[in-house]
């Protein structure tokens, strides 16, 4: 008897509480921004200023939580499968488009589908640049490509992992230039950079911010950039498009919400991000990271994302399954 009464009371309490929650204006609880990479990585370092700026705009706590693993798949699938109420957001890099494609390639159930996530806004888009170890002879892309044609499969490049963004960027170059390079994957962008600095590989495609100090110190030589425009910090560096290769690749970071989030909530979030990128503290933080802000609101971002995803999907299919190429 007592048990039943208790159960009834608790159910009533829960229902009332849930109803109360449902009717409160968004946001009324802390919002979680999931960064699917470990602290100190690009996603994390971008997420924190974004969260701080959004907090100011929304006047509501926005907390960054790192959910790492599987090159970001853990965090991304976590958000993709979470409740679409606007309280769980994702700050993802361009690798978001790669993971489902790679899963398809291996006939695995994908950790998540890109349709499960709706873009809110693009925050930054760093064009990758190609650097070679300073003691190697190539001084321009032309020399590099010619040498690669003469010795196919001998010039080596490092990357953050198979099917990672850095691998895909280099793959697109190989395809556009008709050359074959030797790929040595590493377990992350850090080890990949260490490898080229130690002279163990010849080339690396990388985001500009991390390699800039080494370029200035003369340890690495940049050959060209994958952006449509030249990198601000390296005004003399030509872009691949200028040199006649039709490739474009950015390591971008954007905010996503699970698909199915109600439209008014989405609008609040979009407005919040739009105002957040105008915040002076945010701009200062991004400037310190040497990451230019490249804001795009949801509709343009969706188009950008679709185009980028298609490009990456093509590159992944071209690369195919590694061990089948021997």
């Amino acid at each position, binding site marked *: 008897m007592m048990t039943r009464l208790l159960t009834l009371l608790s159910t009533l309490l829960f229902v009332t509480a849930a109803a109360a929650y449902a009717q409160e204006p968004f946001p009324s609880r802390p919002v979680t921004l999931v960064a699917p990479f470990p602290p100190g990585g690009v996603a994390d370092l971008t997420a924190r200023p974004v969260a701080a700026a959004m907090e100011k705009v929304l006047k509501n706590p926005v*907390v960054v939580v790192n959910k790492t693993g599987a090159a970001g798949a853990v965090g991304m699938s976590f958000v993709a499968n979470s409740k679409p109420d606007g309280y769980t957001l994702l700050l993802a890099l361009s690798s978001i488009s790669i993971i489902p494609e790679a899963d398809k390639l291996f006939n695995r159930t994908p950790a998540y589908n890109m349709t499960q996530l709706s873009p809110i806004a693009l925050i930054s888009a760093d064009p990758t640049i190609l650097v070679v170890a300073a003691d190697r002879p190539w001084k321009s892309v032309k020399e590099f490509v010619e040498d690669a044609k003469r010795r196919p499969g001998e010039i080596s490049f490092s990357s953050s992992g198979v099917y990672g963004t850095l691998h895909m960027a280099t793959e697109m170059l190989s395809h556009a230039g008709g050359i074959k390079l030797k790929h040595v994957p590493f377990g992350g962008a850090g080890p990949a950079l260490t490898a080229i600095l130690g002279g163990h590989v010849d080339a690396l495609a990388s985001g500009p911010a991390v390699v800039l100090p080494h370029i200035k110190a003369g340890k690495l030589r940049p050959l060209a950039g994958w952006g449509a425009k030249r990198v601000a910090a390296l005004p003399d560096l030509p872009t691949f498009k200028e040199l006649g290769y039709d490739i474009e690749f950015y390591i971008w970071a954007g905010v996503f919400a699970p698909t199915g989030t109600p439209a008014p909530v989405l609008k609040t979030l979009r407005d919040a991000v739009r105002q957040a990128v105008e915040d002076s503290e945010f701009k200062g933080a991004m400037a310190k990271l040497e990451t230019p802000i490249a804001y795009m609101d949801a509709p343009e971002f969706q188009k950008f994302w679709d185009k980028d995803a298609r490009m990456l999907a093509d590159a992944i299919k071209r690369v195919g399954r590694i061990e089948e190429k021997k």
Partner: protein
Amino acid sequence: MLTRDRVAGSILVLLAVVTAWETRRLPLGTLHNPGPGYMPLLLALILGLLGALVVLRGGGSPPLRALRWSEAGHAVAILAGCAFAAVALEQLGYRLTVIVLLAFLLGVMERKRPAVVAAVALGLSFGSFFLFSNLLRVPLPRGPWGL
């Protein structure tokens, strides 16, 4: 003739066989270009060989019956507590989970007085949460009602 080492060794051999079977889906590659299945298969073979070695040398070890399992019941209960913690941590939040865990271990398993159990459970759970989550900003999960 069932000695401790023979049983253990046999289990290892079994594990090795199962693992080797599981690697069948992974491409092996060649010696010069090992694929994802190469090292696992190699290691499974080594494990199997070593397991067999343990079985062969296992005649000298104490018989299986000689093993004492007196604390096993307690151990199983503790493991159940850990499993509960794993399940409940993100559903109930840190504090509630720890309270239940401690109440179970102290109250049910160790049969301490309820007042003591309550004090320790509440104190430890809230205290550690305050220290690590509030002061040190270590993110800990919160359950319903923000607990």
